[in-house]
């Protein structure tokens, strides 16, 4: 199931709707990269609220998206990691330290707008 990616000003918002297969995750990575380039986006939010499992593959792939977009000058924020999922990620031993996270979409947008500086963010 493809993940819809919306453009909002200088940012992209990818809202994951349901459980992702590995193929879906790789598709998301490719889609984000091509859209960042097309829209010259400066920030990306990946909303994972709907994910009930973030195993090592998904975590590694999201981290990969964050690293890749950063190399293109765009910052990625992962939002909506559920409490149980966060617990499982820590138990699993996932290192997510170099990835920006925020509680939800609203907080994630504030984080990105803060980076843009006053008067320069998305309306």
């Amino acid at each position, binding site marked *: 199931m493809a993940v819809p990616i919306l453009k909002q000003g200088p940012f992209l918002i990818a809202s994951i709707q349901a*459980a*992702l*297969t*590995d*193929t879906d995750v790789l598709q998301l990575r490719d889609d984000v990269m091509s859209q960042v380039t097309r829209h010259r986006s400066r920030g990306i939010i990946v909303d994972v609220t709907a994910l*009930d*499992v*973030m*195993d*090592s*593959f998904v975590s*590694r792939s999201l981290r990969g998206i964050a690293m890749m977009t950063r190399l293109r000058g765009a910052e990625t924020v992962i939002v909506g990691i*559920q*409490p*149980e*999922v966060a*617990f*499982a990620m820590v*138990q*699993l*031993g*996932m290192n997510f330290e170099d990835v920006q996270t925020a509680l939800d979409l609203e907080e994630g947008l504030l984080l990105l707008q803060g980076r843009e500086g006053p008067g320069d963010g998305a309306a």
Partner: protein
Amino acid sequence: MPPDTGEQRIAIESDADVVTARQRARELAAGLELTSTDQTLLATAISEVARNITTYATRGEVLLSIVRDNGGREGIRVIARDQGPGIEDIDRALQDGYTSGGGLGLGLPGARRLVDEFDIESAPSQGTTVTLVKWSRVR
């Protein structure tokens, strides 16, 4: 649909089957006194061991069943098995960060940390069987 206490078998042949296996386990666990957190830990562990099947053995199966100990405590047992190439050095495969498949090397050691019981049997060209058990916390 088999009855809740019966064994469920999920053939693992694609990444979509990995998702099915963990969703079935969650449904099964929801019928027991497994907390939502424990269900998530179990589902994550299943995702790791089922992915190992698609990565290393191409195909295999996941068997889910409800188990009870002498004290009447209930849990979910997961058997993930394949007839793939097997693991040459199990101790090494259980170390964090060791991988022969291009991943992070968190699959087996991570799955072990997420469940209450963990057992692995494997030998080169004999395939691999991983058994996990997650117990409910109430008796």
